């Protein structure tokens, strides 16, 4: 891969697709993604009520012909340019082996990873059946049932949509919201019972999950379940940037200025990597904005 690109976009999820739709690509643009298709990790959950805009983007977006795409290609390192004018080097792994991608500008749009019970240090056993939404969707997409009786824990639109999809295939679902917040506009209304303002405090059972323990208003209660879908939020997918000099903060979040520039000149970041709490609509909006700024000639 000796070609020199103007722009390398790491990730083909919603923010990248949105930026591409808004015309960010020049003649020498390359897009690479870990998965074998564009659409990001959210794609496995689509279509879903409340995600019409994301579904529309994933369905309709056509990556322009002139853009080079490498799927099944994962960035594992970034070597920023030593001097202005020199290209940045992305180290990528693909089927043929480890390669370099050289580009004048890099847009990091590689999204996030879902937080797990381990991040919150939830005590208890480590049974099968404790998963995050992305695995639930991937198993369902393959025709597998993750469980029979599930607790979905989280208050995002994504957590609700996951609960609804599980209920839709006949799984008995209880949606538990960590906050007091009830239904908000734009979120799908599920039929499954829900509990609000309950804090997850422990996991019990082995080898399979047996019950999930909660605390609400100082009282403790158990919800029997063989599956816990832990859907409390995301962290930035930036472990691969360790050693690159790109500054990251809590949950691996990349620090950018109002022009989406990182601390390294010519390296930009957009979407969940800069704001893990962003939902899909925010990623799409940000993609448009970064496109207008980069086309506009911002350094």
């Amino acid at each position, binding site marked *: 891969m000796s070609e020199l690109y103007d722009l390398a976009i790491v990730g083909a999820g919603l923010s990248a697709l949105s930026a591409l739709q808004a015309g960010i690509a020049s003649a020498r643009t390359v897009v690479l993604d*870990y998965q074998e298709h564009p659409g990001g*990790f959210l794609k496995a959950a689509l279509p879903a009520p409340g995600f019409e805009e994301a579904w529309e983007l994933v369905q309709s977006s056509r990556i322009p012909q002139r853009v080079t795409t490498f799927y*099944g*290609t*994962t960035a*594992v390192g970034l070597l920023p340019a030593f001097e202005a004018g020199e290209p940045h080097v992305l180290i990528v*792994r*693909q*089927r*043929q*082996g*480890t390669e370099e991608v050289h580009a004048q500008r890099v847009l990091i749009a590689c999204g996030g*990873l*879902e937080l*797990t019970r*381990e*991040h919150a*240090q939830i*005590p*208890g*056993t*480590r*049974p*099968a*059946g404790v*998963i*995050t939404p*992305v*695995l639930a969707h*991937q*198993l*369902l997409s*393959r*025709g*597998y*049932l*993750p*469980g*029979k009786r599930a607790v979905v824990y989280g208050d995002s639109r994504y957590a609700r949509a996951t609960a609804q999809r599980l209920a839709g*295939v*006949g799984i008995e679902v209880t949606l538990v919201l960590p906050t007091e917040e009830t239904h908000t506009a734009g979120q799908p209304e599920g039929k499954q019972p829900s509990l609000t303002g309950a804090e997850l*405090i*422990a996991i*019990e059972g*082995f*080898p*399979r999950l047996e019950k999930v323990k909660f605390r609400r208003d100082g009282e403790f209660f158990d919800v029997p379940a*063989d*599956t816990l879908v832990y859907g409390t939020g995301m*962290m930035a*997918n930036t*472990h*691969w940037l360790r050693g690159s000099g790109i500054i990251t903060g*809590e949950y*691996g979040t990349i620090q950018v200025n109002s022009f989406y520039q990182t601390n390294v000149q010519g390296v930009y970041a957009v979407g969940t990597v800069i704001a893990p709490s962003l939902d899909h609509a925010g990623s799409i909006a940000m993609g448009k904005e970064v496109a207008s700024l980069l086309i506009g000639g911002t350094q």
Partner: protein
Amino acid sequence: METKMRRVDVLVIGGGVVGCAILRELSRYDATVALLERNPDICEGTSKSNSAIVHTGFDAPPGSLEARLLAEARGLWPDIIESLHIPYLQTGALMVATSVEELATIESEIIPKAERNGVVLQRLAREEILEAAPYVNPRVAGGVLVEGEGVIDPFWTTRAYCENAVSNGAQVFLGEPVTGIDVADECVYVHTGGGGAIAASMVVNAAGLWADEVARMAGDDSFTLTPRRGQFIVVEEDHGVSQIILPVPNRISKGILVTPIVFGGVLLGPTAEEVDVKTDLATTAQGMHQIREGISKLVPVMAGAESVRQFAGLRAVSSTGDYIIRASAVSSRILHVAGIRSTGLSASPAIGRYASGLVRDELSLSQRNHFMDELPEYLTDMHPDEGDVVCLCRSITRGEILSALRSPLPPATLDSLKRRTGVMLGDCQGNLCMARLIDLFQEQLGRDPLTLNKNVAGSCPIAGRLPGTGFLLEGQESLELDGRDRDE
């Protein structure tokens, strides 16, 4: 199931680091040797959940068998690490005193004991400690450096012992629990449930935490083992920590340590809790709190560090206070290797030699003509077009995973693949790649996803097939959670 009698000269019960080290040494002899493990993979007990330190034995009870074997192991490790390609880092350990009283304990107890164990400790003043390890609590009063301490990968070690034994002809029977033992004049019959049995001229009882129960099955109640739980917190960011940091120990344990992990990151712990059952591997809020509090006195930056994972392990506390490596009073055909406490990994090279020597003498075994003491480099058997990443968090490629699936002791569960390759150990804890791993097990080994467990029987992440996909299991009328593992 049909009765199936297998015959071997020596049967090792227990596929932990100790059992596998003994198996490797036994495979030097002209004899049929085999290992029996009740779990679907080796290294499922004490050997997998510990601080991964190769101790010098500086603080072992002087004169004990444990101290003797730890001392002998010091000389054996370099060759083993080299020939089996085991990841190892000689980090050294700093024992840090946080008060004048603790400093006095180091002088009066720790240094003299280390001298009796043949380990020289280097005294360090407060300033020297802070220079070598600036992350240590500035209130440190002083301490000692134990230069020879290091960290290793316990699973890698166990697997390497076992695979090396297999490449020298040893057999490994996984997923078979011992259900009964009959001692006859000419051999010992070990029953493994469902009519299976193994007749062995000699049995080595290396069943870890369960060695007392195995002994009892043979009518030997000469010792008991109780479980002591240790909880750990894994931190991915090392915050500069490059040495093992030890507190001055109390009577119960070595205390809560900060230990670099050989593949990167840091381990905080363990706790030392007496628990009632030998399967209690839960972490607790109190345990986590105790670790963070203990650590804050040693390495303050770690007290609030983000954790990627927590786990608990159980170690055996022996009623005799020392290693129990001797023939059973019931029969000289049973050799106990029990009560190995928390030092089994460190002493394993010497335990392997010592125990196999006792077996050799008992059965008058002679050395085989050729013994291969080397293993090829691990996970390098990569084919073209397998370079793409499957485990995103750890950048682990399909080639590395396929190489593990093709190895002499292939993984039978998701966790055993995790321990062989490092997949599922990163930030997402396997949620991103597990479905792809399940696909690879199916493609490569023909493994039905509905029978692929996370670890033990009954831990399949998949509960059934979706209605309407027409793949209900035979005899299943609806989508029941089926106890689909034959081992149960």
